[in-house]
């Protein structure tokens, strides 16, 4: 994939930070507004996919490579499981909310819910990207 015209590239480059930020906002405000880790993660993945479509696979791979995505996905999953085990260590049971609940409606409230959503966001973004990469590489022959 060689990439697209300069107009598309410019627009994509300008839009990328905003899309990424919007995805991060959705992830972090999952406990206050509609949304959460899944839609937010997909939006973050979409922002990277947009770059890939505009610039071609080589440039995008410098930013987030296949290997990075694979590791990030595992990390996202591990964050969730470790947070669950954290509850097991400090509290009584798996996934117990052991962090302070905070004040209703604030960003730093609801104990471990935002952290869990952060893990989900990382994982979903990396996962969707990985699916996209896997499908791309399938048509490029033998190389890794």
């Amino acid at each position, binding site marked *: 994939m060689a990439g697209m015209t300069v107009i598309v590239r410019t627009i994509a480059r300008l839009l990328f930070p905003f899309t990424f930020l919007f995805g991060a906002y959705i992830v972090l405000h999952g406990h*206050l*507004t*509609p949304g959460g880790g*899944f839609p937010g993660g997909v939006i973050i993945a979409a922002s990277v996919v947009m770059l890939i479509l505009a610039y071609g696979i080589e440039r995008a791979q410098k930013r987030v490579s296949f290997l990075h995505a694979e590791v990030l996905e595992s990390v996202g999953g591990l964050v969730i499981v470790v947070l669950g085990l954290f509850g097991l260590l400090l509290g009584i049971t798996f996934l117990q909310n052991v962090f302070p609940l905070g004040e*209703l*409606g604030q960003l730093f409230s609801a104990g471990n819910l935002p952290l869990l959503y952060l893990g989900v966001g990382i994982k979903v973004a990396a996962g969707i990207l990985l*699916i996209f990469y*896997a*499908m791309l590489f*399938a*048509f490029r022959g033998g190389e890794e």
Partner: protein
Amino acid sequence: MDFNYTIAMLLVALGLYCLLLKRNLIKLIIGLAVLTDGIHLLLISLGYRTGGIAAIVSGEMFSDLPGFAARAVDPVPQALVLTSIVINICIVAFALSLTIYAYRHYGTLDPSKLRRLKE
């Protein structure tokens, strides 16, 4: 005869029709998605309360939690559907990648032809 429930079940029947009678892998996957969406629609409608509001505390509701509880819709089916949608996406993604693979290597989208092709 309840309109919401009936439509949801008709969607399920439509998906079933697609699954039983179509001979194209993409259409089969669409049928699967339609079927599951019918079920999601049923689940969501089960939690509706007449005149209900979204299950998110906001605005003046912060100081009136009992009033909020008396007016909001059921959050449980929404959570279930959230889970189920992701599961359905996963199935569709995996099915589509199998389809792409089959099409690339065997050049057909008809599941019954896949067998005859190579024997």
